[in-house]
């Protein structure tokens, strides 16, 4: 592979993948907190709407959603999104729905007495959420969010099918240019793996910081697969973070 291919396709591709991951993660976080909190709302109607949102966006495939936004939304809305933003929107909305389940689970896991104490002290619902529930729930959310972030990183590969120039798209072009596939696809798999590794290290640091804030330490890793593993162990029976895969 020549340096020209690296400079013009692979390196910009890595940057696009990172950008896509960060923007969609930001959107997904906003969606997750908004929808997740709405699922614990008093009003049955708000809960229903939030539940409907999560079921629809978790139910459909991210790739189908991406195509839908790319092909169907323009005639429907009268304007067209740049492929990059269509992708961010599709990824953010669908992973936001998975994240909403994480947020809901973590909020429900806060001891009920904490909420009742807030009521007894006549906090407003917003104050209760901000000052009592979230500070205790957020550290619990970080391990499943970390897993979701990797799923999201893997999901960004889908945008290459819309023609956005990310790592997978670069790999495709390099394959066409060099007529050799083993090398470039191995390299791009390694790139994704390294990115995933960096992301998990970042999330682990964040988890330590968040847990220290409420006087806890993250559990020690014992098993060999956990030592190697990038994924955080979450409780299996209610696997909030199982998106499963790219989508």
């Amino acid at each position, binding site marked *: 592979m020549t340096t020209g291919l690296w400079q013009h396709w692979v390196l910009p591709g890595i940057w696009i993948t990172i950008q896509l991951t960060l923007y969609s993660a930001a959107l997904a976080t906003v969606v997750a907190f908004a929808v997740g909190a709405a699922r614990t709302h008093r009003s049955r109607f708000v809960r229903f709407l939030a539940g409907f949102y999560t079921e629809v966006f978790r139910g459909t495939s991210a790739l189908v959603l991406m*195509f839908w936004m790319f092909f169907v939304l323009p005639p429907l809305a009268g304007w067209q999104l740049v492929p990059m933003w269509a992708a961010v929107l599709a990824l953010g909305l669908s992973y936001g729905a998975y994240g909403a389940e994480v947020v809901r689970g973590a909020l429900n896991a806060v001891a009920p007495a904490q909420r009742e104490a807030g009521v007894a002290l006549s906090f407003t619902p917003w104050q209760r959420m901000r000052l009592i529930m979230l500070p205790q729930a957020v550290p619990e959310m970080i391990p499943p969010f970390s897993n979701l972030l990797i799923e999201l990183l893997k999901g960004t590969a889908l945008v290459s099918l819309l023609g956005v120039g990310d790592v997978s798209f670069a790999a495709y072009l390099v394959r066409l240019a060099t007529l050799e596939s083993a090398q470039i696809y191995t390299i791009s798999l390694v790139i994704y793996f390294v990115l995933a*590794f960096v992301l998990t290290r970042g999330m682990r640091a964040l988890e330590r910081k968040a847990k220290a804030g409420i006087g806890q330490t993250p559990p020690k890793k014992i098993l060999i697969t956990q030592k190697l593993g990038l994924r955080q162990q979450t409780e*299996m029976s209610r696997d909030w973070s199982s998106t499963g*895969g790219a989508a």
Partner: protein
Amino acid sequence: MNWDWSAVADFMPAFWDGVLTTLQALVLGSLISFTLGLVWAIAFRAPARFIRWPVGLITEFIRNTPLLVQLFFLFFVLPEWGIQFSALTTGIVAIGLHYSTYTAQVYRAGIEAVPAGQWEAATALSLPGRRTWFAVILPQAFRRVVPALGNYVISMLKDTPLLMSIGVLEMLQQARLQGASTFQYTEPLTVVGLAFIVIAYPASLLLRALERRLVR
């Protein structure tokens, strides 16, 4: 923007073909992932370190890299090594391999949840290794893992559209071809999007019911 029912009707024959291909990929992919995942999970517990470490590394690598790139890898690289598969077979193998690394974690958790006393009892009765696994440990692990495995089947369903990238005629590819030939993308794509919800939502309700029964 107007909805054209005749376009939906025109799409139906291709749609059902797509549904069949999708379900075929799903069923075969699930079978591969269930068996291969079990192999990985047993290998995690192998006494020899030189088995545990490579298996751990390989599964982590597969689990943390995109299925799409793996699909291309298998589709373009295997023929270079002289292994020819059809696109559908490649897709099924890719999905099965990718998800086997997820199911392996599910099995692992299920196996770890079997009380240590069961292992000790098997040793005390001097059961051979194979019987310990298949007559004592796995039957107890299975009821714990069924709901989680089911979740991954639903995830696999939602990943089958990726197979369109190597030209498998599953639902999404059928919709795209239909759109390309009639210039009406709205109806086919919407039908396919709804089809996923229609399959996935009842399936997840079913799983929740199953989970309540099995895991107490």
